[in-house]
């Protein structure tokens, strides 16, 4: 295509439009895409955060969590967690709606993704076809990946293996409570939330649930809520004075594009913990 462009410039004298010669051709960034498959593989970032990530300006997912920046592209998570990120379909349920012409059945897929080491995401997608629901569920799960804080039950020997404190999460009528457990207890939970906890990288925990746990959606979302809260809980380790850092948006642009949120304060504490833990 560049060649054609060059010819066009060369042909008509009246065009008078140079391409700056070498720079134009040298700077050609990717020719015409070939088959459609390749097009879909390549990621063109849509959001500002995506552009920063693609450029390599963001070091890790933790930096994004530190400033509570919304992750709006699943490719960002794929970029950082990459092959470590596993996904699994927990359950596919048919959901029916009554219409004049009978019942319309759609499939609801519950997908959990995680790297078994502190990151987990949950996605729920309804679709007319199973495969579409699963694929959509995986994308939604990746968009919802959160960091999970782990701690100790007693002696602080070895790596953190359980939740740092008792946390409880609620969704609908279901409340789930996670209680720290000694090493070797394993995950004491029902089959489905156990999956979520496994993907989060929690090795030992006691759980207790209440409410209509028959509703799978609410049950897993309540568990997910618990995990979300692990980093929101202020423990004595985090009492240290916070050290404010520059948000990636500030760092990489000269202009204050976004107003700094007050939540940066709490988030910096998270960073301190992350730094301490690893």
């Amino acid at each position: 295509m560049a060649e054609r462009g060059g010819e066009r410039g060369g042909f008509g004298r009246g065009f008078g439009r140079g391409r700056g010669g070498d720079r134009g051709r040298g700077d050609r960034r990717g020719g015409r895409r070939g088959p459609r498959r390749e097009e879909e593989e390549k990621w063109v970032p849509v959001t500002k955060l995506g552009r920063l990530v693609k450029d390599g300006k963001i070091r890790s997912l933790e930096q994004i969590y530190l400033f509570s920046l919304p992750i709006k592209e699943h490719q960002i998570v794929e970029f950082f967690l990459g092959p470590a990120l596993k996904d699994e379909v927990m359950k596919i349920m048919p959901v029916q709606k009554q219409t004049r012409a009978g019942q319309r059945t759609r499939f609801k897929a519950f997908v959990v993704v995680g790297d078994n080491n502190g990151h987990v995401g949950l996605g729920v997608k309804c679709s007319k076809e199973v495969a579409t629901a699963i694929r959509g569920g995986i994308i939604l799960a990746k968009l919802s990946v959160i960091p999970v804080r782990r701690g100790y039950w007693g002696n602080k020997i070895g790596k953190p293996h359980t939740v740092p404190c008792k946390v409880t999460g609620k969704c609908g009528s279901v409340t789930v409570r996670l209680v720290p457990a000694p090493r070797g207890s394993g995950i004491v939970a029902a089959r489905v939330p156990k999956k979520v906890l496994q993907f989060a990288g929690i090795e030992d925990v006691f759980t207790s649930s209440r409410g209509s746990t028959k509703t799978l959606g609410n049950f897993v979302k309540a568990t997910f809520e618990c995990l979300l809260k692990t980093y929101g809980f202020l423990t004595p380790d985090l009492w240290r004075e916070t050290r404010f850092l520059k948000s990636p948006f500030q760092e990489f642009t000269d202009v204050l594009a976004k107003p700094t949120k007050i939540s940066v304060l709490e988030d910096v504490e998270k960073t301190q913990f992350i730094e301490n833990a690893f």
Partner: protein
Amino acid sequence: MPSEVIAEDYLKCNVCGGDLGLVAQVYAPLTINGRKIDQRVLYIFGCPSAACGISPLSWRTLRVQSCNDTASSSSRADSTDQSEGESSSTREEQQKQATDWWEDDSSWGPAAQVNAGDDVGSLGMQELEAALLEAGYAASVRTQTESSSQQEITVLHEDASSSGEPNSPDLPVLPCFYIYSQNESHPCRGSRAVSALQTSERLEENGVAVNTTEDGQDEAWEGEEYEHDQALSADRTYLKFKKRLDCYPEQCFRYCFGGRPLWANKDRGDPGICTICGGCRTYELQLMPPLLYYLQQACKDLPSTSYGPNDWEWLTVIIYTCAQSCTRAPSNLQAETQRSGWLVVEEATIVQYET
């Protein structure tokens, strides 16, 4: 078309008063109500100076349209007596090119600017799929701001100075790209179906049952209902937007005169009414985020200057134009347009941001 037809005010930013940079030049002929308008171009301007391009007021779209049929011949005649910078003649020659290529387009493919298909432009066909335009490659050129030699003017050079003066070196210039158009087939059923099939095959292998409960455990799940898509930080509208984008990840423009825009978030702006005929405005085209990405990538490699598209952070820029694509100028511009044969109208530009 001589560039003095465009009033100088149009080329200044509303917010900071600086010069606007030309972001896109879209050749968009239309056929409305049996009336065929060939000489119709949309120019989209944005303010590239630091801290300014963020507000929606610093974006402007102009629709330049010929008022009469003799305009095309007169514009060619005008090309010989341009005293100002060659950018205007360049632009005009492009229009000439565009028209020429439009007539014998099969061998060339899309022209230097965007050629919106004539069939897509018909007002009557509301259900037409949008034509997507992907960046073919970057022929990134920027006139060196310090050089005064202006022989090789880029396509997207905008000329804000009045006639007689050579182009001042401080005008904002953005790298230029060719854009290719193609029709969009509704959300990539094709390839997605293939990969979806693979996913379901993988499921079958792993023995995940779809409808039955797990054997060995009496888990009776119930009470599930349809749920709209939701993620931690993305709402339904944005998820749909992203889904369409993922089908064609390199789309820079979406064009469909009279169609429906692809919204990125819930707040729809108000397009207003046409300043000339008072009729309502209709959606015509929108700019998409890959355009920003490509522009920023191209600017990255070039010497940094005080302006650039690096501050732009919109998710999409939606352009509404007069539904009738009116040609009758209001009284104050009547003399001007009859003399030059071109009508310049400002259209509505709505910018949507990330939330």
